[in-house]
């Protein structure tokens, strides 16, 4: 029940204050807050002034304890549920536990026990009860071609459901590349005209947490930020929280020294690959991909694709599927001319060239004739 404060809820769950502060420490890390922000900017209540000097973990703990749990409605459209899977199987139990304790998930198709009309009813109730207060998390893109018939739930289109649910939301979080930028459904030729949430909803704050799937810590960290500060973190021009998307993979890549030295793996099982050389030539998109895979990593910081020997696919960027072949070099043109096109260009050039030469000859003859006449 969101009415009880987070502190009360945690007590009920048998989580000690000590463990709680510890969790908040993780949260501080996840939110990228090395230092507690100045009180005025943080939006924290004034009574927290006395804890101003204490460590950030304590600050967050105090802030959280007195707040009510935040209701979350989680909608899935043209998706694969991979982002939900990533969160529920996340290997950072403390952080995810904490976030799951500070929010109440009012509606989630994959997770909820209820189904059918019951579930839909629960959602409608929540929307009414928490109007203007809930966070809407969207997973999956929204097809808009032919009035949105390509994705319907309970007979209603995704577009319709999104618009309705967005109306009462305090903020919207698009998790994964599909909800953010259209993802796989949007890949050329995009038959369903799939779109990301921020293209459709412009009158609400929309945060994009792209990725395939989104890094669970980035999603939960952003939700946590909202719970703690009652607002959204600072965003970049693609509406991604700067905390998680300020640097490229390449900026923090462990293979970077090899890149600088020009040592590249040429295939997946050559000597270079075994020695951990840079994967640029195997199609790595790290240099233009903004994400924190290389720092937060996956599976409790165990590894991430490049560490495991696979080039970055660029899943946090718009046009993820059409941004060049996965195993094609980053520098390769996106649309190299076809042989026919090149042939046509050669033919056009040749025709023009012959034409120019003919014109020249005619002119020459004319000049000769002229000369003769005069001479």
């Amino acid at each position: 029940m969101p009415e009880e404060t987070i502190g009360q809820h945690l007590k009920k769950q048998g989580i000690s204050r000590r463990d709680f502060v510890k969790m908040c420490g993780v949260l501080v890390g996840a939110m990228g807050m090395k230092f507690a922000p100045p009180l005025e900017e943080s939006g924290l209540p004034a009574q927290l002034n006395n804890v101003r000097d204490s460590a950030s973990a304590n600050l967050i703990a105090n802030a959280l304890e007195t707040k009510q749990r935040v209701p979350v409605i989680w909608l899935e459209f043209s998706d694969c549920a991979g982002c939900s899977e990533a969160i529920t199987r996340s290997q950072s139990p403390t952080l995810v536990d904490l976030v799951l304790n500070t929010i109440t998930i009012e509606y989630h198709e994959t997770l909820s026990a209820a189904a059918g009309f019951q579930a839909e009813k629960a959602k409608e109730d929540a929307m009414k009860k928490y109007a203007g207060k809930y966070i809407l998390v969207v997973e999956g893109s929204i097809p808009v071609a032919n009035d949105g018939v390509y994705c319907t739930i309970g007979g209603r289109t995704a577009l319709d459901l999104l618009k309705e649910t967005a109306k009462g939301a305090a903020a919207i979080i698009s998790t994964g590349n599909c909800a953010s930028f259209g993802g796989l459904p949007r890949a050329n030729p995009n038959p369903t005209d799939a779109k990301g949430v921020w293209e459709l909803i412009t009158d609400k704050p929309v945060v994009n947490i792209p990725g395939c799937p989104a890094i669970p810590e980035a999603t939960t960290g952003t939700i946590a930020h909202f719970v703690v500060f009652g607002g959204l973190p600072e965003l970049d021009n693609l509406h991604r929280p700067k905390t998680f998307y300020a640097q490229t993979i390449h900026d923090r890549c462990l293979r970077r020294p090899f890149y600088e030295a020009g040592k590249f793996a040429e295939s997946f099982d050559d000597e270079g690959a075994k020695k951990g050389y840079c994967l640029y030539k195997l199609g790595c998109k790290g240099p233009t991909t903004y994400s924190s895979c290389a720092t937060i990593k996956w599976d409790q910081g165990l590894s991430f694709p490049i560490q495991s020997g696979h080039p970055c696919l660029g899943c946090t960027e718009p046009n993820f599927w059409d941004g060049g072949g996965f195993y094609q070099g980053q520098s390769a043109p996106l649309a190299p001319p076809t042989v026919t096109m090149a042939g046509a260009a050669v033919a056009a050039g040749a025709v023009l060239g012959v034409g120019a030469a003919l014109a020249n000859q005619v002119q020459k003859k004319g000049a000769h004739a002229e000369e003769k006449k005069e001479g």
Partner: protein
Amino acid sequence: MNWESTLEFARGPFFQVALLVFIAGMTYRLVAVLALGWKADKVKSKGSKVNGIAMSFAKGILIWPFIPWVKNTFTRNPITYLAGGLFHLGLFVVIFLGAAHVLVWKSLLGFAWFSLPQPIVDWLAAGAIVAMIALFINRLVNPVLKLLTGPAEWLNWLVVFLPMVSGYAMTHHVIPEYDTLFAIHMLTVDVLLIWIPLSRISHFMFYFFSKAIHGSDFGKRAVTP
């Protein structure tokens, strides 16, 4: 328009169009010259034309660059000769043997070749940029060059210089936004591709053309040493 979409445009449709313009333009230039017609060759050949062509290239590419002092061009204006040579060498290595560009060739041609280690390519790229600056200053101060340099020459210089600096800045992360520099690099490359057939930069093709013609003439008259 943000840098991401600019980059996509410059790597995608703009590059495609630029390359097609380049292909059509260069074909046009070559055909227009070839179709001017040849004078009937009535003189009996004294030597081998093929030999002449081979010698002409061998001397131009493999011999003169290493003993420049025997050439008048060098003694009269060593800066043009040395900086020009360094510039051409750097440009050639970067375009054909730099890792990133080899990947471009691979995607265009379907096959690729080896690439040189980054530090070598890097130094040559830096050398080429410095050489270009030297050539720029030379054109400003050398009294003869000053007379020969008009807007077309300055424009040629700029159109070649921009992709080189942006490419260098990109690989060296002069600013952290790799995609911004990448976008600028691609835009300037696209402009260069369109500009080449319209300008004297097309000498990259006519050089080989005229070397071959002269070589075959020398060969025919058996005047190749």
